[in-house]
């Protein structure tokens, strides 16, 4: 009898000791929380390993490569016109915008220029892909913070923009429409009037989001003063787009030295916000959608007539040389450093994608924040996994 009691007691003591060891481990080394690869806040397959002390993040390390498709290597075995098919899939929500800097770089090397009409239509489609991309962010940010309604509005209204893009290009997500020397085709009949109606819807959507989300107290308390990025730090990490403009840096490639597109002939302004927090990043993007609507409206009014394709050889050989062209894409600056040796295929293409730099700040930014804020910060940085992994 006493034997059994002894055994039970020994087992109890052993269990207690094991518990104590576990407690000790938790207290001294913290806990590791694995966010992703399949978390809705990550827009794809980003995995972040977070070391926690209680609710506070000690260190965060993004682990990538779940979606690396080797586009830089693939461009070396594809002809120049075929590369647009690949780069469409980098930022898949605003895919037309991905094609533009590459085509501009190739045009710079070939010393061809697209006719004015093509440049204006390019700019219109460029801004429409920004709307298609950012509208989804505006809805999605609510979902990350527990508000499900805005995302339905976003999907509803994005569809109209995608329809307009599809009407021109034939593709909803992967237009593959930009060509060296111009565009594949002209605008379809009646498109300009339809687009005006769609832009009205987008403006309404922005107003809805403003009342639904921006004015919401819970939203404000979860985003204000959360994830503050000082301008200097943001610049040294190479942040771009709305992420850097919301830290008070008044810099937009579309206005400051952009090539190939016609933004400088339009009347619009660059929005900035001094706070640098998650709220500022949301707010700046909201204004940018409105600004894009203004731009497209002006383009629809002022689009010049003429051909949409310059005279280029049927088989495109790009003269030897190097060119770097960047544009202000929906997610930030996207650039292509193209090296040509005069062949049918590029010799080397370095793809400078916006999200790669934007996310590289996370180990610094997430240090010391609380777990729920991790989600709010990641969502507000707004990255697309295809744009990180390429």
């Amino acid at each position, binding site marked *: 009898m006493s034997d059994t009691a002894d055994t039970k007691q020994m087992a109890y003591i052993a269990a207690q000791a094991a518990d104590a060891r576990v407690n000790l481990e938790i207290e001294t080394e913290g806990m590791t929380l694995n966010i992703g690869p399949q978390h809705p806040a990550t827009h794809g397959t980003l995995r972040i390993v977070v070391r926690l002390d209680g609710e506070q993040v000690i260190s965060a390390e993004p682990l*990538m*490569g779940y979606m*690396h498709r080797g586009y*830089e*290597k*693939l461009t*070396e*075995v*594809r*002809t120049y016109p075929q590369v647009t098919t690949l780069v469409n899939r980098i930022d898949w929500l605003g895919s037309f915008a991905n094609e533009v800097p590459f085509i501009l770089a190739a045009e*710079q090397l070939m010393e061809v220029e697209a006719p004015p009409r093509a440049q204006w239509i390019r700019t219109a489609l460029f801004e429409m892909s920004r709307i298609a991309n950012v509208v989804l962010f505006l809805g999605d940010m609510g979902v990350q913070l527990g508000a499900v309604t805005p995302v339905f509005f976003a999907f509803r209204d994005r569809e109209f923009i995608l329809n307009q893009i599809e009407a021109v290009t034939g593709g909803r997500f992967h237009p593959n429409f930009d060509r060296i*020397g*111009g565009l594949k085709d002209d605008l379809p009949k009646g498109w300009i009037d339809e687009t005006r109606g769609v832009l009205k819807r987008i403006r309404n959507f922005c107003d809805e989001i403003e009342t639904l989300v921006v004015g919401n107290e819970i939203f404000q308390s979860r985003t204000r003063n959360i994830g503050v990025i000082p301008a*200097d*730090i943001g*610049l*040294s*990490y*190479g942040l771009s787009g709305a992420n850097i403009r919301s830290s*008070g*840096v*008044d*810099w937009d490639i579309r*206005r400051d*030295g952009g090539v190939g597109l016609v933004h400088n002939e339009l009347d619009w*302004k*660059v*929005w*900035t*916000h*001094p*706070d640098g927090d998650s709220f500022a990043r949301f*707010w700046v993007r909201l204004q940018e959608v409105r600004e894009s609507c203004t731009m497209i409206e002006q383009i629809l009014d002022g689009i010049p007539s003429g*051909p949409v394709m*310059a*005279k*280029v*050889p*049927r*088989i495109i050989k790009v003269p*030897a*040389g*190097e*060119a*770097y062209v*960047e544009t202000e894409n929906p997610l930030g*600056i996207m*650039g292509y*450093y193209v*090296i040509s040796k005069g*062949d*049918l*295929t590029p010799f*080397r293409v*370095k793809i*400078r994608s916006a999200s790669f*730099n934007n996310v*590289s*700040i996370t180990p610094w930014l997430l240090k010391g924040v609380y777990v729920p804020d991790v989600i709010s910060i990641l969502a507000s940085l707004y990255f697309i996994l295809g744009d990180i*992994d390429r």
Partner: protein
Amino acid sequence: MIQLSSPEETNEEEVEIPKRDDIREDLISKLKNDLGESLVATEVVAEVDVWVRVTKEAWLETAQVLLNRHNMKYFNFLSAIDWLPSPFGRDMDAQVDQPEPVTPEEMTWGTTGGETRFQLLARVHDLENHLGISLKVDLEDTDLSIESWSSIYPGADWHEREVSEMFGITFLNHPNPVKLYLPGDFEGYPMRKDFALLARRIKPWPGIVDVEDMPGEESEEDEVDA
């Protein structure tokens, strides 16, 4: 509630901007002054861009000079170039991949020239003058290592990790020198030109039919009206 950073004088007062090419030439002469012998080659393409090639020893110093004296606060990207001509027949006109390596071509370099197979390529940006500069540095095959920029531009951290795994270049004093995309035990350096793209070795690219002539068209037709 919503505060705006003064948007008033964004577009109006843009008179008297010095020409960007003048700024570029000016920058080059200042860099020559700062770096002296370390500046190997420079090139300005009018109204397009500016390139600078420095020696390997001055790589770190170049970053410091650009950041502190020339206000290049914005780190854009860092990458590498393998100038070896591809040893595999990858011409799109070929019906099949050539199984044995074709006769090796001469190695040629691009803007600002070069002497070695591997070159590092980086780009930083001056926001006030809206001026970017591309930097290059030669890396000897025997010693593929160079000082890391991450102490000066923290954003270089990930870019250097990517270059390191893709090209096999070592960055000294890097805070976290592990692979970025590839699995930890991956062997080889995929972005090197002599690393075969396996999908292309196994079977010819299916898109090859696309470049066949359309019926009734001449094959050597070079120019066509739009």
